[in-house]
Structure formats: C-alpha cells, structure tokens
C-alpha cells in the first residue's frame, strides 16, 4: 500500500459530490467509496465527513432521505440534487484547469522561460 496523502483543503466537498453522483450512499458508504476509488491513497478523518455533509445539504447540493442499509439497518442516504450536479460540473472544470496550470508551472524547464 502506498503512503496515504493528506486531503487538500477544500477538496472534500468535491469528492463527496462526486461519490454521491455515482448513486445514493450513506455517510459511511461515501467514505468507503472515496477510499475505494482512490485506492486507499487518501487519508480522510472519518468525523470530518459529517460537517461537510451537513453543509452541502444546507446549501441544497445534496438531499438526504432515511432508508435501509445492506444489512437491514436504518441509515441516512444522500443523493445529488440538480443544483449539486451543476456544482460538481463547475468544480470539476475549475479543478482541471487549475491542475493544468499548476502542472504547467511545475513542469517548466529553465530553457522554456
């Protein structure tokens, strides 16, 4: 297993939106999905997930509903709203262009200046 990376500030929201966009999930499920997609390379403080979820729901980007978990227990499921979908798209584009710029800068060689 590779060394785990600390989460970049402000990226947790985006990861949650992405995770939820793949299908309704409860809080623990979101954590598992992010770890699964990232192949366990991201270190996420478990507790920090919930303030983020409450904030996103408060802003109307995700919606919640109580449902039944895989092993027949009551769990709160989150889904992406229409506004959340737009938000995710915007954040993704923003992230990609930012990553391009940063990568471009970091990849600059002395002779290119």
């Amino acid at each position, binding site marked *: 297993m590779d060394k785990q990376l600390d989460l970049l500030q402000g990226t947790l929201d985006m990861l949650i939106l992405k995770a939820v966009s793949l299908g309704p999930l*409860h*809080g*623990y499920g979101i*954590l598992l999905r992010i770890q699964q997609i990232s192949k366990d390379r991201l270190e996420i*403080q*478990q*507790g*920090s997930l*919930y*303030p983020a979820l*409450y*904030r996103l*729901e*408060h*802003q*109307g980007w995700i919606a919640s509903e*109580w449902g039944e*978990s895989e*092993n027949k*227990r*009551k*769990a*709160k499921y989150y889904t992406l709203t229409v*506004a959340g979908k737009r938000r995710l798209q915007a954040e993704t584009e923003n992230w990609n262009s930012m990553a391009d710029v940063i990568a471009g800068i970091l990849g600059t060689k002395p002779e290119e200046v």
Partner: protein
Amino acid sequence: MRFWNQLRSWIQTTLHRSRMESEMDAELRFHMEAFAEDLVRNGMPRAEAMRRARIEFGGVERVKEECRDNVGVSFVDSLLQDLRLALRMLRKSPGFTAVAILTLALGIGANTAIFTMTNGLMLRTLPVRDPGRLVELLHQYPGEPAFNGFSWDAYQTMRDGNHVFSDLIVDSLNVIAVRADKPQPQTVFVGQVGGTFFQALGVRPAAGRLIGPEDVHTGDHSPVAVISWPFWKSRFNLDSGIIGEKIVVGDTPLTIIGVTERGFYGISEHARQDVWWPISLGPSSGMWYGLLGRLKPGVSMEQARAEMAVLFQAAIDRPDADPFVRRMELRIEPAGNGIATPLSQMLSTPLTVLMATVGLLMLLACANLAGLLLARGASRQHEMAVRACLGAPRARLLRQTLTESLLLSVAGCVVGIFVAYVAIHALIRVFASGRFVMIAPVNFEALTKPDAHVLLFTLAIALLMGLLCGAASAMSASKTEPATTLQQVSRIGESKARRLFGKGLVASQVTLSLVLMSSAALFVEYLSHLRNLNLGFERNHLLLVTLDFARSGYNAAQFSQLSQELVMRLDAIPGVSSTTFSDMSPMQGPGAASFASAEDHPEKQTQVSINSVASDYFETYATPFLAGRDFSARDQAGSPVVIINEAAARDCLGNENPIGRHITLSHVTSTKGEKTYEVVGLVRDAKYNDLQQPAPPTIYPDLLQQGYIGSEHSQLAIRTRIDPDGAASAVRQIEADVLKDVPIVRIMTMNEQIDSSIVPQRLIAMLSAGFGALAALLAAIGLYGLLAYTVAGRTHEIGVRMALGAARTHVMRVVLRDALWMVCAGFTIGAPLAFWGKRVAASLIPDLPVASLLPIVVAVAIMIAVGLLAAYLPARRAMRVDPMVALRYE
C-alpha cells in the same frame, strides 16, 4: 435561489431541533457501528472494534457542534443562551432593571405618544387619487389664522384664469346638525361641494350615485345629498333602501342619492365629513367657497403660488372693496395629508416643539442608561475575563452585552407602549378643551389610531435606544484584557479613558437636562405671564352661559322682554351680583368687525371690533368706565348710542373727549348698512379675542337698541360672589323656566374660556415642564449611579487615605467636588445650547420672553441642587468607610 434553500433548511432544522439532534445521533452511531462491523468481519474482537471505531471517528461532540454550525442552528442556540443569561442577570438586580426599564419606557412612550399625534394630524395621506398633487387655497389677514374660503368673484377669477391646476375643487368644510331617521339631530362635519368634487378626487359610490356637475346649479342648489359609508353604517345599518329617502341637514330636507365608497372620509382625517350636498353657485349666493386645487403634471408649488397670487390680487382689488379686504393674502399649502383645520393649525407648532423635546429626552435616557450599564459592566469585568480565557470570542462577549441592553429595550418598549397609551389620552383631553375644537365632532380616534408608521417608529426608537445604551458597555466588554483583569490590577482603579467616558456621559446628561429645563422654565414663565396679564376685566368669579336662540323664533321685542326677565331672576340668586347679555364674550373667538370713522373725518377709516352688549355688561365684567355712562332703558327707544374703549377713542377721535361725539360704522352684522352713533361712554381697554394681542379698538353698541334677536351662541355672563360653578345649577333651572325654547349650549367659567384659548401654550408648558422634571430626575439617577459605583470601586483607596490620616470631611469633599465638576462641565456645554434652543423656540412661537435670564438661572440652580442631592448618599457612604474593614477586605 440558494438563499431560499438555506433559509428553508435553517427554518426546518430550527423548528425541528430535537428531531435533528436524534437523527444526527442515529447517523453517527450507524457510521461507527458499520465501521466496527467491518473490522469484526476482518477478525477483530467486537469490543476492540468498537474502541477503534470511536478513535478513528474522532470527537463526536465536536463533529456535532460543527454540523450544527454548518446549518446555522448554533446561532439560535447561543442566542437562547445569551437571553437566558441576560434574564438571569437582570433578575439578580431588580432595582437596576426597574430603573432601566422605566427610563426606556418613558423615553419610548413619550416619543411614541407625540409621534402618534404628529402622524395622525400631519403625516397620513388622504385616501384619494394622487394625493401628492393636491393643494389647498387659503386667504389670510395679517396676524390672523389662515382660512380656506373665497367669494364667488375670487373663485371665478381664479378658476377661469389659472394655468396651473387641472382641477379647482370646491368643498366647504362645515359643522352642522343632521337629522336622519332618528328625531334627535347629530352634529357632523359636512361638505358643500362643487360638481367635480368626487370625480376629481377619484371617489366611487358604494351605492347609488355621487354628485356630478349636473347637480350644481346657479342660484339654488338641487336638494340632493351623498352620505359617507360610516354614516350609512351607523345611522342606517347599511340599508340600501335609503337611496331616495330624505335627510334633514340644518333645516333643509335633502334626498339621499348615494353613498361614497368605504374608506373615503373627505378632506381631513380628524374632521371626517359625513354628508355632502351641492353648493349653489353664483354671485348672489353669499357663499364662501372652500377650494382645493390639483396641480397639473410638471407644475411646481412655486409656479402655482406665483400665478395664483397675481390672480387673487386682481380678484380682491376692486374699487368698492373694504380697505381691510385688500390686505388679504393668498396662501397655497400642500393638502395631500388633509386640509388645515382649527385643530391642525392649533397643534402643528406645539407638536413640532414637543417632537424636538422628546427627541432630546430620548438622548438623555440613552446617555443615562449607557452610564448605568457601563458601571455595571465594570463590575462584571471579572466574569468577562473568565469567559475570554475559556475561549469566548470577542464577538460573543459583545453580543452578550448587546443582548442584555436589547432585552431591556424590548421590555421598555412594552411598558412604553402602555405609557404612550395613557399619555395620548391625557393629551386628547387637553386638545378637546380648545375653543375651536369643543364645538366640532372631531374624530380623535383617527388621531390616536396607531398605524404601520407608528409601529415602525416605536420599534426603531426601541432598537436605537437599545443599541445606543449598550454600545459603550459592549465595546468595553469586548476589549476585556483577561490577563490584567484576572490579576486584579483593575481593583486599584480603572483606566483613565473609561472613567472620563463615564463622566462625559453624566456631563452630557446634565447638558441635555439643562437645555430641557431652561426651555421648560421659559414656556412656564410665558404661560404664567399669559395667565397673569391685565385683561381689562376681572376673570375670576365669572360664569359664562352660551345660549342657542337659532330655533327660538323670537322677535326683537320678545327677546328684549325675556332677556330682561331672565337677568332680573338671575340677579336674585343668592351669591350673584350682576348679570348681562352680550353677542360675544372675551376669548370666545373672532367676532364681528367693521370700519369706523369720526363724523368730521369720514376719510379716515379705523378697523374696529364690534360687540353688542346689554346694560350692566361693564359692571358684570368689572371693566371700569373712564367717562360717560352705561346704556339705560331709555336708549331702547332713543337715538343710536355706543360705548367705546380707549383704543377706539384714540384711533378714531384722537385725544379729544369722546363723549357726545358721533361715530359712523360701515356696517354692523345685524344692520348691514352704514349707521351713525353717538358715543355715550368710554371704558378701559379689554382683551377681546387673543390674549397675546393688545386690546383692539372696540365699539360696543346697545344690544337691545340693535333689534338683537339672539344667535346660536349668545353670551350670558354672571358675576358671582361665590364659586361660579356653584351657581350653575340654579342658572340652568331659571333659564329653562324663562326661555323654554332656548337650549344651553355650554356653561363654563371665564377662566376655563381663557384656558381654552391658549391650549397650545398650555400644552407646551405642561409637557415641557414634565419632561424637564423627568430630565432632572434622570440626570440625578445617572450622577448617583456613577458616583455610587466610583465610591464602591475606591473603597480600598479611601480606606488607605483614611488610615494615613485623611479627615472624613475631606473624603466627603472629594466626592462632592467630583459631582460638581461633572455638573459644571455639563453647564459649559449646556448654557450655549440652551440659549440657542431659546432662539429656535422664539422663531416658532412669537413673543416668548427670550430676553429673560430667569429660565437658565432656574435650570442651573435646580441642576446644582439635584447634583448635590444625588452625590450626597455616595459621599456619605465614602465618609463612613471604616479603614480597617476596607483594608482587611483586600
């Protein structure tokens, strides 16, 4: 969109707090249990798995707190906490809380009461189409109140010649008795209107139709009437069958053709009209036309004034016009808030003065409470420091203090509304005693009705006061330095800046109360000056009876016989020394006027007041004869005679002996034509209509000689040796016996009548004196609070001083000197302000005794006394400090 989302989610979670909490619990528990189960599945023992799950999750409470923060409910939580703490703190010191709430309540109540009046009288707009462009036309003789009424000629000239009005609307506001279905008449405001009245104001009928141009004819008017919705409801119970029924207005039967829409009440809110009928047009009608104009779009007030002034001059500048009439001037005033009525003319100046006064009172109350809160805040420094140490952010400490002051202001607001309610009803009683008001069915309910403006005003005042009061202590609380405070450095003394600020607050209270008290003293001095004027007649022990002869049907001979019989029988009442009839009594209101000329100087016309009186008038009023004689029974059949006063003698006849000379009057109300009289008596000058004006030249013709048959308000004056009110019932009895068809309109003493003519002055004097006293009291509380706090804070220091040998009197002197310094600092700023305030007051109210230094001297003296009194208790406490106790306490 996002905002609404957040608001909705905030409201939902706030309203369902307990559900949110339990759901949050369930969700977090599910997370940890699910994680633990996964660990168990990987082979970990269950107990160890749960422990791991809790560790990995982190602090559950902190997570929950962050969740609450993120949906904004923690704000409400901490607000509730703040409120609970504030309530507890206030309950802990009930004395302070009571003083604070009362101070706020008086400030808020006084402001609300005066604003309610101002709003009801001057700020509410009429419920008509585009009220902003309505103006009122008034004429005014120099030095007299303006009056909305114009002759046919003036009306015609202004209507046809102007280019500034899209409508010139006729509505003559009047008071008259109306008989409807019930036999007894009801006195209501009515309007005689032109054909365009309803159409121009955009009023629709609720039933039937309204008066239109077809109803208005030259000469006689057509006998139709429109009634108001409230009148329809109260008198006819909304019966739609009344269209076509008769209604008797005065003595004229009119046919009801319609009802105005609900909500329309005419052209003044407190003088609500209930019946309208068409005015008759034409030169011979002898009517006065009340005029409203609607400005054309784009025409300014100044343009309208300029053009109409020229037209009006042309209308009155006729060769046959009285010289007096030519001095008339036209005024145009906005009428969107209702036309000027006697009530609004009487009250607009007092209300302006009082609004300024209560504004100052509010500032004073704020400074007072700010000082008290600051002193209290200082004693809570320790608590604030502890909270700061425990991690409370400054904003939170600031909010806690503001929550307390706002809580106080909310409580003050509630009590203040009650204060305002009581104050408004007391004010109304004073208004209603005004001489113009008591004869009219003024709608005081409309004046006192609180509307959205009043509500907003009160809330704004309460909020403003809460913030102003709390600001200082909030700032100081948020600046708490935990380290120094907890080391108890502060016990030796607080920072110099803060002490100065506290003293500054007290000094500013002294300043404000000096201004308020000196102006109060000014108004009170003025009122007592008015009440002690030499009137030229004796005001005490004089009973005035107003009689309505309008329906008696007496001829001159009957009047003469019955009035003499009545006077004779009244004279026989024990305690009555003299009785007389007259057309007018002094201070009753404006009476007849005419132009007089001496026989040998017909070209020199003097404007004179006319009052027809019976014999014994001057004896009854105790106005001395300077020469000549009173009227006698022989005059009734003889040649016309008059008695004149000194001013008339001087102005008409120069310095010669007036007795036996002849004076020609251009007209007397009952005779119309010119008539020459012989002067048989000369009496001392007496005030006539206005206490503030010098006695006008006055001519007194013989009532009985004039063929007088009584009017709607003939005056019977009774001079008594006993309390005049005591004679009232006997007078009623005898009057009913002798004059069976003549109702008594009212009985009042001369002093009451004088008071009814100076309602504005009384109002200002009474209220400003009350506010001045309140200001002094507040300043005293402020001073006392600060000194008491300072002495308490300096107990240690005083103990040390005493231990080192300071005398007790010295300690007391230090405290008193402190107090006097603050009072004197207040004076240095207050005195110039008070002088400035006097000048402002003088510009609003003519002939105030502004030159007098007495008011300021009185105010300064009172403030010094109040200051020493307030300082006495703390000073005594300082003097009694026991050095041993003070030092051991350390």
